[in-house]
């Protein structure tokens, strides 16, 4: 029964195929497609949760199923489910593209699941490309074709460039060692971690994932793509896609061993530049999605702090950070999607009077903003605290200090968002927002999650630590 361990992936493959068939119908029925997608995503989440304990290896050892990959698969499935929850009014995408939209979402999720389990360079690269290509098209599905196409094109060009660099890095590593499976590589590299070919190869390999995470210098695409993509796609990119990138990133960092001084210096620099650049650029931003894009760049920097600690505490911190990003980024985008229900972009001043138009959404926005900034008692603080502690164990005091100063900078623009929602009064004619019951309970649930997991994060921390133990 070795195929059983492949269950979640097979489920998503079947779901994607189903939508391929649905998309062939001449007369689309968006309502029914939405319900189908929602139930499939919910079932997929259940399948992934049921498969958490699965373990095994497939395809001649190039595909590894362990607690680490399964935890990430649950996160990805949850991300997909949450994004589809927001698709009831999919006004950003044309009616006849809806089924392709779902097809690509499921396909992309499948590819990311493959990424989390891939331990062979070929598997990793194929999965990376599959997920990237799905996203390129998803971004271009925007109702206004010029906007979507421009964003999709930008994403595509920078994306293939990053992929090319990644392949080159993989080739260098292969040339230096003669093997392509990560566990073999770890064995061969052991003791030779300061070999220039290995360092450069690893660094170039990581570039593809720098791109996905939007780490400097591969961050250019983020604001434009978030702005140009349909809101739901932007939500997906900033949640699930980041989670998958973190998963592979940590797996590749196994190659760095536990003390590669050059690599650590480079990562420290990238982390500092990403945080500072993202936060400073976000200050001037008026478009909420672009602002969130810049905050994503900053968050990529914080994730790097956990990664560059090169210890299990740091990796567990990064895994926890991925979970927290999923929750808090989604909450912020939930507000974007609901306030801009016509599927357009959302400027900060359009949040005016949100506290009257919908007190619940205003509260969701406030809590997610504080969480993104990393103010306790929210889940965002716990994530930062964990990666900071891990970095401090390696003696990175200045890095932690700079990161905290960045938290102060970021609070400034988050407060501007909160100010718009709570202080400014709505211009005349802005009606009470029509928010459906399920969305209300969803946003209440997200607020509770952010606060409760901020106050009592222990179970989630244990899960992250267990996952990392399976990885190491």
């Amino acid at each position, binding site marked *: 029964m070795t195929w059983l361990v492949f269950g979640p992936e097979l489920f998503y493959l079947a779901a994607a195929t189903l939508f391929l068939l649905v998309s062939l119908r001449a007369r689309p029925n968006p309502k029914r497609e939405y319900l189908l997608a929602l139930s499939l995503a919910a079932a997929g989440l259940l399948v992934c949760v049921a498969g958490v304990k699965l373990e095994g290896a497939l395809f001649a050892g190039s595909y590894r199923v362990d607690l680490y990959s399964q935890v990430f698969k649950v996160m990805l499935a949850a991300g997909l489910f949450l994004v589809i929850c927001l698709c009831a009014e999919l006004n950003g995408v044309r009616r006849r593209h809806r089924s392709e939209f779902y097809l690509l979402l499921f396909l992309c999720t499948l590819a990311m699941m493959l990424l989390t389990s891939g331990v062979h360079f070929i598997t990793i690269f194929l999965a990376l490309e599959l997920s990237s290509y799905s996203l390129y098209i998803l971004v271009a599905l925007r109702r206004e074709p010029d906007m979507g196409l421009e964003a999709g094109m930008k994403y595509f060009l920078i994306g293939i460039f990053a992929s090319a660099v990644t392949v080159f890095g993989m080739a260098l590593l292969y040339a230096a060692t003669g093997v392509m499976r990560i566990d073999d590589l770890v064995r061969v590299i052991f003791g030779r971690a300061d070999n220039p070919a290995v360092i450069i190869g690893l660094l170039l390999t990581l570039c593809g994932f720098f791109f996905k995470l939007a780490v400097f210098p591969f961050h250019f695409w983020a604001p434009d793509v978030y702005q140009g993509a349909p809101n739901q796609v932007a939500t997906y990119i900033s949640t699930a896609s980041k989670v998958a990138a973190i998963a592979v990133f940590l797996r590749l960092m196994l190659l760095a061993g536990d003390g590669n001084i050059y690599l650590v210096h480079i990562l420290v620099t990238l982390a500092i530049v990403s945080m500072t650049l993202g936060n400073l650029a976000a200050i001037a931003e008026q478009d909420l999605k672009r602002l969130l894009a810049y905050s994503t760049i900053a968050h990529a920097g914080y994730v790097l702090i956990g990664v560059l600690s090169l210890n299990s505490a740091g990796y567990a911190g990064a895994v926890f950070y991925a979970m927290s990003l999923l929750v808090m980024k989604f909450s912020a985008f939930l507000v974007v999607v609901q306030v801009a229900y016509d599927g357009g972009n959302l400027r900060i001043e359009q949040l005016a009077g949100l*506290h009257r138009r919908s007190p619940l959404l205003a509260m969701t926005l406030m809590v997610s903003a*504080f969480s993104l900034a990393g*103010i*306790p*008692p929210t889940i965002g*603080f716990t994530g930062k*605290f964990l990666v*900071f*502690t891990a970095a*401090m*164990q390696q003696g990175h*005091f200045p890095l*932690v*200090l700079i990161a*905290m*100063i960045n*938290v*102060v900078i970021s*609070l*400034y623009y988050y*407060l501007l968002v*909160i*100010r718009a929602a*709570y*202080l400014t009064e709505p211009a005349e004619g802005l009606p009470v927002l029509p928010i459906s019951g399920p969305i209300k309970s969803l946003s209440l649930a997200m607020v509770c999650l952010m606060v409760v997991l901020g106050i*009592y*994060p*222990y179970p989630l*921390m*244990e899960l992250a*630590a267990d996952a990392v133990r399976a990885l190491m």
Partner: protein
Amino acid sequence: MPMVFASFPYLSAILLSCLVGLLVILLVPSERKMWIKWISAVFSGLTLVLSVYLFFAYDKSVGGLQFVEKVSWIPPLGIHYFNAADGFNLPNLLLTGIVFFTGVLTMWELQHRVKEFFALYFLLVAGVFGLFMSMDLFFIFVWYDVSLFPMYLLIAVWGTTRKEYAAMKLTLYLLAGSALILPAVIYLFVNSGMNTFDIVQLMQAGTFSPFEQKFAFIFLYLGFGILAGVWPFHTWSPVGHVAAPHAVSMVHAGVLMKIGAFGVLRVAIFLCPQGWHYWAQLMAALAAIGIIYGALAGLRQTDLKYVIGYSSVSHMGIVGLGLSTLSVDGLNGAVFQMFAHGIMTALLFSSVGYIYDRTHTKAIAELGGLSRIMPVASAYFIVAALASMGIPGLANFWGELLVFIAAFRVYPFRGVVAIAALVVSALFMLRVIQQTFYGPRNEKYASLPDVSLKVGIPRIILLSVLLFFGLFPSVLVDMIETASVPFITGLAR
């Protein structure tokens, strides 16, 4: 580690009454303004009763930590939910209870977005209570930020003069403080090698090397010092106090600034005593400058609330001076001054609040002769102003006396300078009293009513507390000594 509860968890009950109060307020429909106010009064009254009970139930003959509550929270990182009461935090808990309750009463006439105001106000105070009672570094940091969380909206929505600017400045300054605190806290945690955030365990001598203590101390001192209004990081405080609504000014100047001083004491001084000795000169210098600067700046203000704001800077300098003397008297005086200044400032802001709500101005030049229009309202302010000058018979006198005696011994020059500054501060308070309450009266306000007994309740409470501890200072000093004497003698060994 199993749970440890010494007795009924009074400390958690205080926190719970804040949080349950918050939840109940959230559940009441926002049109029911009177319900919300009564609920706030009941729950804040409950915290006051509990804190008064704790203050008098604490066994001074035994001393040490009492009412201990300890639950393991995050075992892998050694984080505990660890609350305890000792001679240092009990006066502050009592202070918070009093200011919280009287603050709710001061805001009784609020009509604008009542539900949100009291909800945020409860959250703010929950953070303050939590910080004072916690003995775990992690929780101290978390509570610090919980008390910061609602400040922005409280000032920006309900405030007055330049409120958005003030709210942003205050929030960012205080968060900058936490940006210095958190790295230092993690640094201490990692370098202790004990994998615990428990302050009592970390306090053991020899845990930290002298270098580590000096290094961490300066970050902790500056981080908490920003909140304590230490010169030159005080600039948020007058601006913030002026802009904030009355109850928030009361909590902010009365209690929140004490959090900063208390953090310096509880975290920086407790964990890094050698750092304390090393940096004491700097602390004393900054404190002395703050005392003089606050007094001189106060002399030139034309806005009643700015006057109080700058006098707070000056008075918090006295607390800082006390903390820098490395002596029992200095610590006693500092904690006494925290308490007395908290009550006194709350009374000042509460009185100004009444006057402002009637006259809609805080400009000293526009007022004038108020004592003939509203004699009772004026009396509250004047008594508080006398307290701030350090008149014997009111609580502040004792705090200042203790600090200055200690400061004279250790820093003769800075002590003399600081006392000279007191004369200036007396001058500016008298100037304010003369211009606001005496002289020709402004006919525009002649028909305004005086404070009725009912509206005056919060001020009466604050005033009687000032008088009580002015006449019986030993109640408080004995309490503080149960903590300060063992701490200082413990260091000598």
